[in-house]
């Protein structure tokens, strides 16, 4: 019951003509505008766009933190939200890793990691701990299980949070700029460790960032979003084969992809900047 179904890949996300308008009867700010996007099972989909462009609204709609105004979102042909059901119910099949980290400071690392399976009543304490220790050992976190989050470096905290998400055998990991606050060296360590984890546990990854290098290094697909309202402007398929490591960063193909994507990102960043000036 606890083993994931390996025969059929899970985690296909279909975003169909989604619109999100905040405060429709008042200021009516359109955050997401007729956005359509297909993400294959086990794909790493990187969403790139300027800050405040509405990427997070999309993530919140998938996670079930916010409703959508129209359109529909499916996970493996199951309707998450759409006609007659504006907001999906948050669930452990779509675990979010938050921008500033959301490990519970009052729980030890081990208790944080076992939280999901225990509150869901999916496994006993012993089973959950066994599984947690196995995943932690894989992630090189074996010796921090009884620490509190505040005692760990931010890089280690992010890795713990990914393990906490994976404990639930999710179909999708939703990451909202998880490495934003890290220095570039730690960040590149995090990228390699995330890929290692991904190779061991194939899940669909929906990853929001505004760092283009990060997007191309990690992604199978990079979706450049337009500035508010947000909709896909350009979708770039990253054909650099897995497994990838930091050597990819200096490869020619990586540079070409950067060039190809850069101008689209730059245009939108400029548009966002100009919009910001107008509002200011």
């Amino acid at each position, binding site marked *: 019951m606890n083993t994931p179904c390996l025969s059929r890949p899970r985690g296909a996300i279909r975003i169909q003509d989604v619109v999100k308008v905040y405060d429709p009867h008042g200021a009516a700010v359109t955050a997401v505008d007729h956005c359509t996007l297909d993400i294959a099972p086990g794909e790493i989909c990187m969403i790139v766009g300027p800050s405040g462009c509405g990427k997070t609204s999309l993530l919140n709609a998938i*996670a*079930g*933190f916010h409703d959508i105004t129209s359109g529909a979102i499916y996970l493996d042909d199951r309707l998450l939200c759409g006609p007659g059901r504006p907001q999906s119910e*948050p*669930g*452990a099949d*779509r*675990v*979010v890793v*938050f*921008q*500033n980290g*959301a490990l*519970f*400071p*009052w*729980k030890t690392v081990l208790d944080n990691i076992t*939280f*999901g399976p225990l*509150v*869901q009543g999916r496994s006993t304490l012993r089973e959950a701990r066994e599984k947690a220790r196995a995943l932690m050992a894989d992630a090189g976190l074996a010796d921090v299980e009884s620490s*509190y989050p*505040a*005692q760990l470096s931010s890089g280690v905290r992010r890795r713990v949070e990914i393990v*906490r998400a994976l404990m*639930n055998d999710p179909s999708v990991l939703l990451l909202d700029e998880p490495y934003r606050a890290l220095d570039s060296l730690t960040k590149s360590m995090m990228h390699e460790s995330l890929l290692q984890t991904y190779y061991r546990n194939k899940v669909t990854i929906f990853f929001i960032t505004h760092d283009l290098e990060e997007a191309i290094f990690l992604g199978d697909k990079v979706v450049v979003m337009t500035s508010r309202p947000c909709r896909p402007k350009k979708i770039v398929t990253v054909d650099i084969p897995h497994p990838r490591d930091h050597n990819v960063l200096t490869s020619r193909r990586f540079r070409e992809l950067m060039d190809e994507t850069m101008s689209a990102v730059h245009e939108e960043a400029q548009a966002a900047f100009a919009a910001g000036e107008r509002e200011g």
Partner: protein
Amino acid sequence: MEMVASGAIGREDSRLAMIRRRLALSLRSPAPYLALLGFALFLGFWHLAVEVWQLPRFRAMPSLGAVVGDWISRDPIYGLSLFTPEYYAHIWASLRRVLLAFALATALGVPLGMAFGWSPAFRRYVFPLFEILRPIPALAWVPLAIVMFHGTESSVRFITFLPAFFATALNTMLGVSSIDESYLRAARCLGASRWQTFRHVVVPGAMPFIFTGLQISIGVAWFSLVAGEMLAGEFGLGYVIYTGYTLVTYPTIVIGMVTLGLVGYVSSAIIRLVGRRLMQWHARNLGIEG
């Protein structure tokens, strides 16, 4: 079985060693000596001001010698010392009132504060009323309390309870609303029900604020207790202080005051200790431990 026992002893040993280490460390730092010096300066000034210099405002004050002499005398001139059973009866009377009021304030204030923080609808109903009642000083309640409860004992308890209750409820509410939204979202993502989220996120997340509230609560409980006892008491430290004034036994006043200071200090130290025990994660965050 044996392993368990030896493990426990080992832990006990290491705890003792830790306490000893900490004690040695604090004796090497200047803090305890500075504190002693502070006491000495204060007491020295008291003695000089009253007995030697006889400063204008201090002339009628009880002297250090008179207070300490009476306090440690087996046969006190003014009737109250460490060796008289009445002394402890007064302490116990006050302590009992404070503990009862504090326990009731905690038992009612924490759930009410949680409800304020957790349910916006409930807050909209009750909070405005709460905010009007809260600033009314406990002393203003004295006449009504006496009318309401007939006896003095219940009215003193009520007056002690009231501000403690408000402090606890308000801080608990602040604690709940201080919890970062992403913790609540994370819990829901990980499959926690509303009740599980409450138990595993809201309660521990609000804990630091709750304990701040309890510290304030016990402080204001002592404060209003003394006021209540002065007006309506038949026993207790506030009563000791007030009768010391009416019977012109001034050293007794100071004995009552110092005793209040000590008991008050100990009671809030105990709450601090319990808080630190319950929130090791918080202590570590602040770098107090570990």
